């Protein structure tokens, strides 16, 4: 979208002074509830995550603050990476199932016509 000169940031990592890498706020640019809520669900399903939540900073800003706090000193980028991978796998499975069932449905519709 932006010119070639300055590249718009996609992902930022914000940590409070003195906080360990288990407590991080990620800023996801150009995202909203669509990715925010589904990713939050996937990450909250992980055992080592103590807290995961997100906010939309302001209606006229297209970014979300995505907070992760982990247990036992685990770097917060780990559950984020895992959540993204798992969400991709879920989508892949939904996509495969959907396409299979739509094809079955279309075949079933064609047969009675003959």
């Amino acid at each position, binding site marked *: *979208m*932006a*010119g070639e000169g300055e590249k718009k940031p*996609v*992902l930022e*990592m914000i940590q409070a002074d003195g906080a360990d890498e288990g407590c991080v706020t990620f800023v*996801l640019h150009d*995202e*909203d*509830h*669509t*990715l925010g*809520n*589904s*990713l*939050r*669900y*996937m990450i*909250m*399903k*992980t*055992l080592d995550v103590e807290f995961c939540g997100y906010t939309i900073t302001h209606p006229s800003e297209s970014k979300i603050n995505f907070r992760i706090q982990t247990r036992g000193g685990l770097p917060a*980028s780990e559950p*984020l*990476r895992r959540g*993204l*991978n*798992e*969400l*991709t*796998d*879920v*989508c*892949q*499975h*939904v*996509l495969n*199932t*959907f*396409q299979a*069932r*739509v094809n*079955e*449905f*279309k075949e079933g*519709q064609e047969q009675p016509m003959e």
Partner: protein
Amino acid sequence: MWAELSRLLGKMAATMKNVEEIRSRVILGEFGVKNVHTSDFPGNYPGYDDTWDMQKFQKNFRIDVVHLDESSMEFDMVGIDAAIANAFRRILLAEVPTMAIEKVFIYNNTSIVQDEVLAHRLGLIPIRADPRLFEYRNAGEEAAEEEASEIDTIQLQLKIKCSRNPRASKESSDPRELYLNHMVYSRDIKWVPIGNQADVFADSSIGPVHDDILIAQLRPGQELDIVMHCVKGIGKDHAKFSPVATASYRLLPEITLLEQVEGEKAERLKRCFSRGVIDLEDVNGKKVAKVVNSRLDTCSREVLRHDDLKNVVKLGRVRDHFIFTVESTGILPPDVLVTEAIKVLMAKCQRFLNELDSTDMK
């Protein structure tokens, strides 16, 4: 002591059943909806392993196509959380790209429709063209000077003039008979191929999806001379790019009768729900109410207004059973829209995975 113990065990069984209900059902009560939020996260319930398990998900996940035609479809998506189902719905509305008229060059407009109103009306017309075969047009300042190219733009033309119909009968007062080109329809919009588009899209006719959308009404002497540029865009930017008329889901209703309802009460119970939900069966000469198809219910909660009926039914919705309805604008078939929506969510994940890998977070 044994009595005490069995009472305790009974109570435990009851709470276990209650927990199962909290986890899997949304309860419609008289004064509100209970158990709205997803709560099956690790650590919330003793005795449950709620950590993410791909095998378990794949075993429980199911899709059933109920209806599918060129413009609409209905399907059940079972065994997935609302967060992800809602992501698909949101993407269908706002993030699956389509082609729509973005630039309107008005060379002449002597109709009574103002230029800006006309431009807006044209923008909202669905254009049949596969958006997957086009690129986004660059929105930067220096890009604005760039010529429209065959990979990112479709050119359309609307050139029409109204005149008197020489063959109209003298006493006629019907404008449709008196004038020629009195009504301007979307079918009057003609595609002007750029570059190699005439060869590439030879077998897919590009143009408005519907040919009977009224754009303007003219009187003799009035004319329109317009060139339009269609570009690829998403519904988040402008609703004209949205590929769906509607995309929504509802949870599967579940109606449970807690005790036998018969006679006049059964008749009244039947009338509280949508047609086809409750049926009356004849048992020993008595009419007994039976739930036959709770899917048809609109969940109006009318039954809770009857004091003698509200305690004999339990109204709920299955938390992970989504009944999706997708209605396309006609640009792409609805099943293609859903697959595209799923791919968009995967692309979003990939975008951040790439970013995580490339910077490796200082």
